[in-house]
């Protein structure tokens, strides 16, 4: 356990080193937040609220939606896919496999460490600037607790999906295309971009078969109290089911991948 804590600490330090990258990422998030706040205002065109298939949604809800999902995005972007596939392509993975550590747990520690450093350096500035510019509201404690649990679930789902794409590197030389496709799918079907309650019926149907909405949409709609408490609990159960399914896929692929792995030279 102490060993893994060291990995977390290392990732925190590594992430804090690249200050310019951090600053630029923050700047892009703030820009995006202002774009979203402005287009929601323009689309509502003076009306305070509109109806959706999940009840009445006010303009304030939408602005809060943008702030919270911008905050969640701090925990969702990671380099896991390229890190893992690079290790496989270069053969570095062979050295990692003979270390007395669990590869997946090690990668998880990297992600956790990166996320922890992101809290202070990225999340807090986004929330403070967003809150000062547009106002901020906190739900009642029951929803807040459920929100944090579903957020953790969403981060786990994102970790497992990116881990699976990374180890596809056992079969494909180049996985960066999959990464691009994943980003686009996540952008639409996670609700990171526009909430699913404004989607046309067809796309709501599609999003039901995909795990992506549990990354952004589910936690934010819990935060905004747009689901009942039993509804929120059922979301958590569905997240658990997806986590179990993705975990199993990851394990199977890892076994098959390492079994066929041949490192040339080295």
């Amino acid at each position, binding site marked *: 356990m102490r060993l893994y804590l060291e990995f977390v600490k290392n990732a925190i330090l590594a992430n804090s080193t690249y200050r310019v990258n951090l600053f630029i990422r923050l700047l892009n998030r703030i*820009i995006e937040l202002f*774009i979203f706040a402005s287009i929601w*205002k*323009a689309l509502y065109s003076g009306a305070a609220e*509109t109806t959706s298939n999940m009840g009445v949604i006010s303009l304030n809800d939408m602005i809060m939606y943008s702030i919270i999902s911008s905050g969640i995005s701090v925990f969702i972007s990671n380099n896991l896919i390229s890190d893992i596939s690079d290790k496989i392509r270069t053969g570095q993975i062979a050295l990692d496999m003979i270390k007395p550590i669990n590869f997946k747990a090690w990668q998880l520690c990297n992600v956790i460490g990166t996320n922890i450093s992101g809290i202070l350096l990225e999340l807090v500035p986004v929330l403070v600037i967003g809150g000062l510019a547009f106002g901020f509201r906190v739900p009642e404690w029951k929803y807040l607790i459920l929100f944090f649990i579903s957020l953790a679930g969403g981060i786990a789902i994102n970790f497992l999906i990116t881990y699976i794409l990374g180890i596809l590197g056992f079969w494909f030389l180049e996985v960066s*295309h999959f990464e691009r*496709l994943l*980003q686009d799918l996540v952008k*639409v079907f996670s609700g990171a971009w526009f909430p699913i309650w*404004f989607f046309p019926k067809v796309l709501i149907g599609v999003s039901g078969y995909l795990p992506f909405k549990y990354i952004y949409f589910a936690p934010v709609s819990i935060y905004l109290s747009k689901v009942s408490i039993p509804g929120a609990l059922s979301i958590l159960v569905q997240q658990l089911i997806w986590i179990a399914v993705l975990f199993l896929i990851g394990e199977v692929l890892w076994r098959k991948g390492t079994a066929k792995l041949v490192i040339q030279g080295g």
Partner: protein
Amino acid sequence: MDPLVLFLRHASMSFKTWMEYKYAFFTNQFVQFFTYGTNYLGIWILFDKFDSMKGWSFYEVVFLYSLNLLTYGLSGFFFWSPMKQLGYMVQHGDFDSILIRPMNPFFHMIARNFNTSFFVNIVMAGIVFGICFNRLGIAWSPANIFWLVIFIFGAFLVQCSMFIFGGSLSFWVVNSSPFINTFIYGIRHFVDYPISVYDTVIRALLTFVVPYAFVNFYPAAYFLNKSDDMLFFPALQYATPLVGVILFLLAYKVWSIGIRRYESTGS
């Protein structure tokens, strides 16, 4: 040798390289198609629910977005790779090899590095743009065609200049890539939507400081008769070509200063 002949030789060499990597070529096209198709899908989602965005209809916003995408694709074809690679080349001293060639380094960098991934952007944006032109009932009159060509050229120069400004920073900072990203994946997104949705400060910034608004908003204002749509001066809707040329000259100046600085540090 004539610089133009040299440029064309390089271009034909790049073309042969792409033909060697057909699989990569087509997967790149598919991925680009998917990404930018997704962005069109996003506009459709918004307008499925809402009727208008500050008086702009679905086709008007698609028109606006396509103009941005088309000129971004055109400029990316020439400048994406050279400007993204410049940082690495300066760091590793590879840029020296560009300086000793009997060709202007600027044109040499472009000629050896066309980025074919942008083909699909250009084709897709061009087709969608044409559809919007018809849907919005804009006449294909000689005057409109004249302004269309001029505006696209001006907007293309604005987009190129942003790449050059960002890339030229490599001569001053270790890694210029984040700065280019801020331009093309950050600030540029402001003009995915009509800038009349933003408050005056942001509109002024996008007009006078980082003039992305000339890429699509002001030209679109001309075609869609939006001159009452809170423009600072109505004449700005004709200013895209002028802004493009000035910005491009300025960007080239920054590039030249950067090269001189690179030479003086020696490595």
